[in-house]
């Protein structure tokens, strides 16, 4: 990231609710009470839930999906090494709330029920906006959406099959018809997405 891109992101964050950190409340004490988190970060059942949810958010269609792009592994790595203890605790807390949200454990729901639940909670999260309860099932869905999108759109399939990416453009055209800008899709670019 260079200064120009960073400044662009800073002014973009000011514009967008998407930039509002979902995990703004830092509760160090609560984080310190959490049990130690192993190197894999998620327990196998937790990992299964995360994988199932990101598969709903970015499924395989005519292009690869989040699972094809290795997004569950990316998410585990991000929590293990990148996000703070408070962010870890927040996500796991929200995951636990999500597990209770459908009455039945998520993985025991059928595909249509899973999709309906994720869609409903996603809608709730958007309706809550900045007032979202960070420990809620809805917060889990929205955080998982951000993580899935970050992992996917930084992956090779995301950059090259949904977006377009040219490693060495070799030239610059400032103002061309959209249809003449490569294949007319959005360019993959450096970006910032706070959890």
């Amino acid at each position, binding site marked *: 990231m260079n200064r120009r891109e960073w400044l662009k992101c800073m002014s973009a964050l000011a514009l967008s609710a*998407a930039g509002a950190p979902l995990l703004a409340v830092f509760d160090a004490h609560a984080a310190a009470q959490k049990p130690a988190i192993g190197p894999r970060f998620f327990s196998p059942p937790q990992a299964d839930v995360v994988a199932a949810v990101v598969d709903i958010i970015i499924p395989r269609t005519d292009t690869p999906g989040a699972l094809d792009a290795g997004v569950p592994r990316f998410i585990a790595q991000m929590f293990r090494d990148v996000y703070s203890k408070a962010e870890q605790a927040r996500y796991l807390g929200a995951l636990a709330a999500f597990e209770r949200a459908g009455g039945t454990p998520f993985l025991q729901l059928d595909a249509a029920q899973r999709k309906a639940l994720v869609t409903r909670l996603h809608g709730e999260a958007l309706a809550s906006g900045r007032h979202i309860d960070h420990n809620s099932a809805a917060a889990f869905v929205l955080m998982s959406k951000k993580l899935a999108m970050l992992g996917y759109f930084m992956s090779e399939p995301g950059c090259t099959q949904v977006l377009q990416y040219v490693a060495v453009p*070799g030239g610059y055209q400032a103002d061309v018809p959209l249809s003449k800008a490569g294949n*007319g899709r959005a360019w993959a670019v450096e970006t910032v997405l706070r959890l």
Partner: protein
Amino acid sequence: MNNHIYDAIVIGTGISGGWAAKELTEKGLKTLVLDRGRMVEHGDYPTAMKAPWELPYADEPTQEDIRRHPVHTRPSFYGIKQSTKHWFVDDLDNPYEETRPFDWFRGYQVGGRSLMWGRQSYRFSPMDFEANGKDGVGVDWPIRYDDLAPWYDYVEEFIGVSGDTDHLAQLPDGQYLPPMELNAVEKDFREKLASKLGRRLIIGRTANLSAPLKHDKSPQRAPCQYRNLCMRGCPYGAYFSSNSSTLPSAQRTGNMTMVANAIVHELIYDNAKGKATGVRVLNAETGQQTDYFARIIFVCASTFGTAHLLLNSTSSRFPNGFGNDSGEVGHNIMDHVFGSGAGALVDGHEDRYYTGRRPNGFYIPRYRNIGSDKRDYLRGFGYQGGASRQDWTRLVDQPLLGDELKRAAEAPGPWRIGMTGFGEMLPSHSNHVTLDRNRKDKYGLPLLNFDAAHGENEVRMEKDIMNDAAEMLSAAGYRNVTPYKTKANVGAGIHEMGTARMGRDPKTSVLNGWNQMHACKNVFVTDGSCMASSACQNPSLTYMALTARAANHAVEELKRGNV
């Protein structure tokens, strides 16, 4: 000892040191070039060719990276990414003190911050060199624009600066490679600014090669490939850095001896000769001490590196620091007022896009306190900004999941535009660094303590920076106009200046009009510490021009036997 004697010593290899090395070696001086950091040859850029998916953690810093970089991960900085973190110092190993908070963002390696700089290259104007004298602020510059203009020409021609000829008194034109282009929305904004507010918007002037260089002295440098990954180091040599440009030229003369990991911690003064005779060096890896000697010394250690070195070099002649008869060494710290601006969304233009990644943006030159404009503060500011189409992050708070989400991400989003101000900071004696000799770093060297803050002038200006940005975007008819202010301390602009200012009077300044120490004529200081005022333009180009001019003068004076 014979192998430790040179004609010249250059301390530091950043923007200024690289130029000193090139000029002095090309003029035939056997020159020792020292840098405190590790060697980085042109091409040693480990992440330069990595695709997004080849960088771990989506390029974000890990908790361990954050732990090692508590300063460099402050909200005002952006460099601790997987792709660029290796260019920035480890804060735990390189501590400093903050009586008042200061953002000190540093890169210790051969090439210094010339590897990561923003490349925006603007001349100071006649008005800028006259301002201190007219306003009675700080000390008058001992030089004027005409003294420096030929050296700006010289430097621009060598490094290659892409820009337009804009005929602005406050921003003199230079020797430019072809300008890069504005995109559809930037052109729209330019027209509306001109018609509604009478203000100018120009394409940024940047040290990227928009065309081949007009000389054949840098065969390692090729035109820009429009990847916009400059900060990782450019294997094409398409932007100016010491590594890609000045140091290879110095190397080719056969007159340069480069020593990396060489921390210069003291200038050696000879009372009998009334001159500096050399430098004391600590090897950063082995701790070995070595003295090197030369007839002239160029101090290009960066503004605060230089302040540290001068304050640490005490002797019976200079009990308060080398060349510090005036008491001004370490004082008059300047940066640019930084971190504020505004953004907006722009409707329409949805059938327009761009190809390639331009390492440049637009520039709105200073318009405040020029001509009939009069504000309740002195000086002014410029803006740097750009327009682009929003990326997929816009879809996070859209009611889209699954196939719909992927389809929506395929299309570029609406246009948005943003800009950030860079404002002039006045010199003030009270903004200063001192050495704390009671606390040492791991090399046993005393810590720098920063004590600087923006004054009333800067506070007033910053309000205008935010308000004007929002007003201009509103006047252009854009929507969701949002002013913003990033939490930033002095230093966050990374345009560090002052601490050894130029001036005519040895009683009130450290350097004369040739960047030569009033009190020790064979020492030249040509990095940001020499600056008497900050203007609002990015200062690196001025350091380069001052360095080339000082090197030319130093060699002439050597020949005349005056130093």
